[in-house]
Structure formats: structure tokens, C-alpha cells
């Protein structure tokens, strides 16, 4: 699965160890971090004292990555307006979100009241961080699950599918899956 990870810029300064641990757990679990931004941002911060001066590009890339990701993990021990924005964007796209806050993080947080079905709030520490993330990833891993949906097509598309099915000996559903898979392969290459 593709996992998009996000956190606040304060985490770069104060929680580097925790953030790296989370990223390691994601990778060790056999999943892919959708956008590897942390090391570059950390280097930039150490060198220049700022994370970026091109926030528009970063926000755009984050939103695109959220759209492509299967799940989102957000380290939200420190307040971040932008992380809140990205979480809501992910909810809008119906992506499962794991919202992690350290056990020693401020309890007085409005975000703990967000009870959306797509958001899982979890407190973590050094001892349970792996178990927490692995459990979330397992529960949302769709590789072994088949999904199904119906959608409407017009006459033109229907005729094409019928013709293609006749020509190739495949079912209309197989043709559609192949077409989508081709698009995915193009994007990944």
C-alpha cells in the first residue's frame, strides 16, 4: 500500500526521532511511503532554519500524494494548521487516517473531538508505536480484498466494450480493469 505520512514542521525540530521511527515502521511493514519528504525538509531546516519558501508547491504535492495514497498517517502531537487542512482533504477523499499523538502530548486538543469514521485517533510511545501502526496498516490493507462498484456508461462506451470483448475473448469487466491498470502503469513509470 502507499502510505502518505505528514507532520508539523515543529516535529522536524523537536521530534525527529519519533518521526523517523514512524517512517521506519511503515517501511519495515512492507508498505511504501508515498512521498519521501522528511530527509530533504530536515536538511533544509538544519541548513537554513526554514522548511521551505515554496509552500504552494509543497501543499500541491501533498494533496496530489493524498489522492494517490491508500492510507494516511499523521503525527499530530504538535498543532499544525496545514496538517489539519491535509487531514480534512484526506477525509474528503475517504482515505483512512491514523492520527498519532504521543502519550506526553498536550491533552487539551480540539482535534481529539473530531469523530469522523475515517479518522483513527491513537496515543503512542516508543513501546507501542510499531504495534499501533502495524495494526492500522493491516486493518486497511486492501491487497487481499476485492472491491466492487457499479457505474453508468453511455451507449458509445457500451458498444466499445461489447466489441472489445468479442475481439479479445475477455469479459467487459476484464477489459475495463486492463485499461485502468495501463493508466496506473503509465503513472508509475
Amino acid at each position, binding site marked *: 500500500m502507499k502510505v502518505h505520512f505528514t507532520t508539523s514542521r515543529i516535529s522536524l525540530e523537536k521530534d525527529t526521532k519519533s518521526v523517523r521511527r514512524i517512517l521506519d515502521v511503515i517501511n519495515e511493514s512492507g508498505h511504501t511511503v508515498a512521498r519521501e519528504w522528511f530527509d530533504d525538509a530536515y536538511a533544509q531546516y538544519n541548513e537554513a532554519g526554514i522548511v521551505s519558501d*515554496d509552500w*504552494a508547491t509543497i501543499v500541491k504535492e501533498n494533496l496530489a500524494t493524498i489522492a494517490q495514497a491508500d492510507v494516511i498517517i499523521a503525527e499530530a502531537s504538535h498543532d499544525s*494548521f496545514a496538517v489539519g487542512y491535509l487531514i480534512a482533504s484526506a477525509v474528503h477523499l475517504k482515505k483512512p487516517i491514523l492520527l498519532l499523538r504521543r502519550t506526553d502530548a498536550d491533552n487539551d*486538543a480540539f*482535534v*481529539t*473531538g473530531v469523530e469522523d469514521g475515517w479518522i483513527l485517533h491513537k496515543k503512542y510511545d516508543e513501546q507501542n508505536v510499531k504495534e499501533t501502526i502495524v495494526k492500522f496498516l493491516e486493518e486497511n490493507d486492501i491487497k487481499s480484498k476485492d472491491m466492487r462498484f457499479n457505474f453508468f456508461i453511455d451507449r458509445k462506451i457500451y458498444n466499445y466494450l461489447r466489441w472489445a470483448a468479442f475481439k479479445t475473448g475477455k469479459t467487459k469487466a476484464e477489459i475495463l480493469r486492463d485499461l485502468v491498470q495501463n493508466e496506473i502503469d503509465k503513472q508509475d513509470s
Partner: protein
Amino acid sequence: MITHIGGGIRANGDEFPYFKVIINAIHEAGGSIARNWVQSANHKVTQKIENDEDVDWGGAVRENDYAMNIADLYIAETTAYRLYHGYELAQALQKGIPVLLVSRTSFRPYAISGVKNKLLTMKTYETTEELADIVKKFITAHEMAPEDRYVQTPVDYKLAGYLHGASRAQNKTKGEVLRELALLGLELQKITERNKKSR
């Protein structure tokens, strides 16, 4: 115009005067507030309620969701930025609601400055007068003339029959009948809120 207000408040309550300025400016511009949470938040600070068990954040979020659903505009004071208000910002933009973010510090160091949306206005201010002016201009700029509001809604056979009958009996259009029913609902809401406050 109904405005939903958002924004972070620090433990020392430094932001309260600015929220009061925003609320007053909205009223002076002829608008109303979807949910006035500022007083209860002030109470939390003055009573030094610090443990999250004492604050029903889930309830507060649900009330904010309701406020967002009825709001025409969203204004957030973001000097003391909070993750939750970034969440609300995205919700407002997803609903197509114009948003004004105001802050006493520059947005530039923060990722939120990278959010580009034609509905989003970000303004910094230094004085309360400046803040009031920014809010009033925002409200005025987004004021919709009555004829610009238009609602289309499907109705079932029963409702259609009622509207047809009421329209003939009262010699009004079905739209006028619906408007009067909605106004009646608003009046009822005001009476209910007044009764709640007087208890």
C-alpha cells in the same frame, strides 16, 4: 449572512479581545454568528479548566459541524493556530464557503500560506481597528443580494400536493409559501433559544 467563527485560543486567553472585535464587526456589517462559542471558551480559560475530561471536544466539534453547515462565510483568527482550524478551513472550502483567515503574524513561514483557493483570503493585522475593518470589508464583499439566492429542491407527491393547495388557498406562489414556512422555522428557532437562555 451567517458567519461561522473559528480560531485558536491560548491558555492565557490573549485572543479573546480579538474575537470580540470580530463578532462586533460581523454584527455591525449586518451579519450574524452561526455559533457563539467565545463566551464558553472564555469561561474555560478563566476557570482554568485544563483537563480534557472537563471539555467535551466531541460535542464542540459536532456543534461546529452544524455551524459550518448553516454558514455562508467562515472567519478564523489563526494567530494561535490549531490543527483543528486547518481542518475547518478545508471543510469550508470543500463546501464552497468563502473564508477569511486573519492573523497578527505573517502566514509566510507556515505551510498554510501555500493553500491557493479563490474562496480563501488571508490577511494580517496589527490593531483592533484594522481587524474590524478587514472583517467588515470581507462581509460586505460577500453580501449576496436576495435575488442571488436560489434553491432548487425535489419534493414528493404529498408535499407537492400540499404546496399546490396552499398556494391556491393563499393566492401565493409555491415559492412564497415555502419562504414563509422557512421564516416561521427561523422565528421558532429564535424563540427556542430565547427560552433556553431565560431558564
